[in-house]
């Protein structure tokens, strides 16, 4: 098992020594930022939005982005 965990473990422990707080927070927030970029860039054809764009409150993609923004806020606050 050490062959798996040691290299990664050493890396993370080094990161911890140099302030894992900001690193962890940046990683989690980065994941949600990447998710927002992915959601925003999905082609409309894939979501069946080709004929007419739905109203904002009925737009599932917009709601998903809002939820992801809320997650960024939570990890900023408590991360």
């Amino acid at each position, binding site marked *: *098992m*050490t062959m*798996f*965990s040691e290299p*990664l*473990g050493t890396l*993370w*422990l080094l*990161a*911890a020594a140099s302030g*894992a*707080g900001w690193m*962890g*927070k940046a*990683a*989690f927030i980065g*994941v*949600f930022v990447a*998710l927002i970029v*992915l*959601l925003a860039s*999905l082609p409309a054809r*894939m*979501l*069946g939005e080709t004929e007419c764009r739905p109203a904002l409150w009925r737009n*599932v*993609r917009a*709601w*998903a982005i*809002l*939820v*992801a923004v*809320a*997650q960024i806020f*939570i*990890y900023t606050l*408590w*991360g």
Partner: protein
Amino acid sequence: MSTIRLSAVDIALVVGYLVGITILGVWLGREIRGGRDFFLAGKSLPWWAAGMSLVVSDIGAKDMIGLAGDGYRYGIVMMNFDFIGCIFPVLIAAFLFMPYFWLAGVYTVPEYLGRRYNLGVRTFFAVIWVLFMMGTLGTIFVSAAAMFEGLLGWSFWFSVMLTAVIVGLCTALGGLRAVVFTESISCIVLTAGAALICGLGLAKVDGWAHLQETIGQMTWTQHHLTLLPPADHPVYPWPAVLLGLGFVLGPAYWIGNQAIVQRTLGTRTQNEARASYVFCAAIKLVFPILLVVPGLVGVALLGPELGQPGKDWDGNRVLPMLVVRLLPPGVLGVVMGAFFAGVISNLDSYVSSASTMVVTDLYRTFIRRQAADRECLLVGRWLVVAFLVGGVAISYPIKKGFGSVFEAFQTFLSFFQGPLLALLLLGMLTRHATPWGGVAGMIIGVSTSAVLNSAELLLGVPGGIPFLWTAWWSFVAALAGVVVVSAFTSGHDEARLRGLVCWLPAEGGNKP
């Protein structure tokens, strides 16, 4: 621990709730004509009902009790199970995976794997899921019994039998439609109950700021108030939370768990399937706070009595003790209703899904290929009863063997979730994954899980390996197995893969 006496109002609320959902479940079952109605609710579910049902299929009594106990032990890091471990994968699944399950018209996740890879992969995961669900049923019964024993002084067997009978009536007669609509009601009751415990708990400790101050003064709670503990945390190091939970266990659970996916497959349109997942994610922004904060309140209120958690410390006592001390008569009925709601919604999800998988992936595949729809309906109903009986039977040994119910649940999960996710990801995202690649990935991934789960015994790693790391490495091993073996074996032709791989839409295009 002292038990409570319910007032007449409390009893009326609980009995009213139980009778109400049983009648609703039976009533909704009157329109069931065949297997499609029973297993997929005739593809008639609205997004809001499926979304609320998704929430309570995931959060039940095991989470209410387990998360409060683990919140006491580890702090707000436990919220990650619903944040990075749920919201992130749910949003990914809503847009990249669910539409393809829905369009493929499958009843189960193993059925998809069978079409994408081969019968061996399908059968393996169907059998594993059924076994897992049996184990889960046992853990849910244990959670329920612990709750009712602590609160009401009911015996273990009385609690188990009562819940089994209610779930049996609703699910065997009403099918998925009854499950989803009764779970929608359960979601409202569960939210109200959890909010009451959380709100009254915070009021008792003079608010969040005072609670933070109290916890900050203790010596053993230094990481209780951060979502991201340091990288050398013994159980939840943040890199493992991100990689193991966020990238493997969470996605595998929300993309590959039949009990979850089945609700979405029963929605009216592809867009409603997507909306149900996003609605679930929105509700999940609040739920973990309502479930974990009571654990922190427990640290402040019960700390001198329960002490610092050690090896044999029982986290399942925290929530019942808080309920007994915090809630006045009249409010207790709502909270007890919430506990019943959590238990029942969890149980009906798992028995319904296990029954669907046995009929679709085993009975119709190996025993009666030409089985008529009515026959499948009948077999499905009897299987619901059989699974409940099995769950009741194994609940007692589970009670004796596992300290923390929630941990037991996660251990079950981590064993094969990584390999399942690897097969689903590669199967859906690339046409190059071959049937033999799937078989190899499955074997390598599950073997890796088995070895890492037994690391203390087999490899001499003191204390074993955190289950989140096990999940991550079994996923990586399975991924590597599929890629390497697929490079040397031939896959299905393009016609067969249409509608199963996201870059190959079904003939006529992917219409919502």
